[in-house]
């Protein structure tokens, strides 16, 4: 048993430690904070034994997209506006919620397919698409702000 090993640990006598970790962040609308938040969420996933690919690819890229949209689109980078991030991880799944102070958007309408020939040379428009491809579920709703909710089921 070590202090760095997290997650559910079978200890032989049929017992089991169930761990759920919830992280909550408040950050100013500045993209320089993204990497730190992403690192902490990804680490929790690693410690709860998510697949290395999920830890290195799905989680960081999807969360970075949601955060940069919240900061640049939702809050339009207004310094006084804040972004809230809630991440809940357990042995089954990760749920991330990114909340901005904007008035929201229509997910289905804004999601374009960047792999279509006319889009593949565009410089933008890949964020929501990557989120939807890298997560099992992406939802948007309004609740004290514009909330983007992403769910990823754990792979071993």
């Amino acid at each position, binding site marked *: 048993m070590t202090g760095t090993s997290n997650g559910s640990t079978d200890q032989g006598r049929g017992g089991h430690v169930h761990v759920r970790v919830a992280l909550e962040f408040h950050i100013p609308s500045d*993209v*320089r904070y*993204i*990497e730190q938040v992403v690192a902490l969420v990804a680490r929790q996933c690693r410690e709860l034994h998510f697949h290395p*690919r999920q830890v*290195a*690819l799905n989680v*960081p*890229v999807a969360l*970075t*997209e949601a955060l*940069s949209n919240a900061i*640049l689109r939702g809050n339009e980078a207004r310094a006084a506006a804040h972004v809230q991030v809630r991440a809940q991880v357990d042995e089954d799944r990760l749920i991330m919620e990114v909340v901005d102070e904007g008035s929201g958007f229509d997910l289905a309408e804004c999601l374009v397919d*960047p*792999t279509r020939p006319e889009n*593949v*040379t*565009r*410089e*933008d*428009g*890949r*964020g929501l*698409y*990557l989120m939807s*491809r*890298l997560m099992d579920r992406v939802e948007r709703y309004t609740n004290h702000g514009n909330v983007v909710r992403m769910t990823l089921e754990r792979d071993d």
Partner: protein
Amino acid sequence: MSFSIKKQGDVVVVDVEGQLIVGNRQELKQKVLDELERGERKFLIDFSQTGYIDSSGLGVLVSLSKKIREQGGELRLASLNDDLKTLFELTKLDTLFQIADSRERGLASF
């Protein structure tokens, strides 16, 4: 995270150390455009030390590729790990870029 640039033969090689994301992509863009301005035409970006890339990082690569091509130059990529490869495949950007397995192969491909 940082970008280090060195010249190997007539190829400008850029190492992306850490993430290539919304917070630092402008730095990469500027560094490469400065070299283009100086007359360089062959560019290889090496991702062997890269963590993850977001959509705005991908966007900068697309943008640089266009600008270099406009000057008659070429941008190639090298050393994408499996996760980064997946990212290029998901976005079909693997069809837009010439991607080499290793820095050596990338250099040899020019």
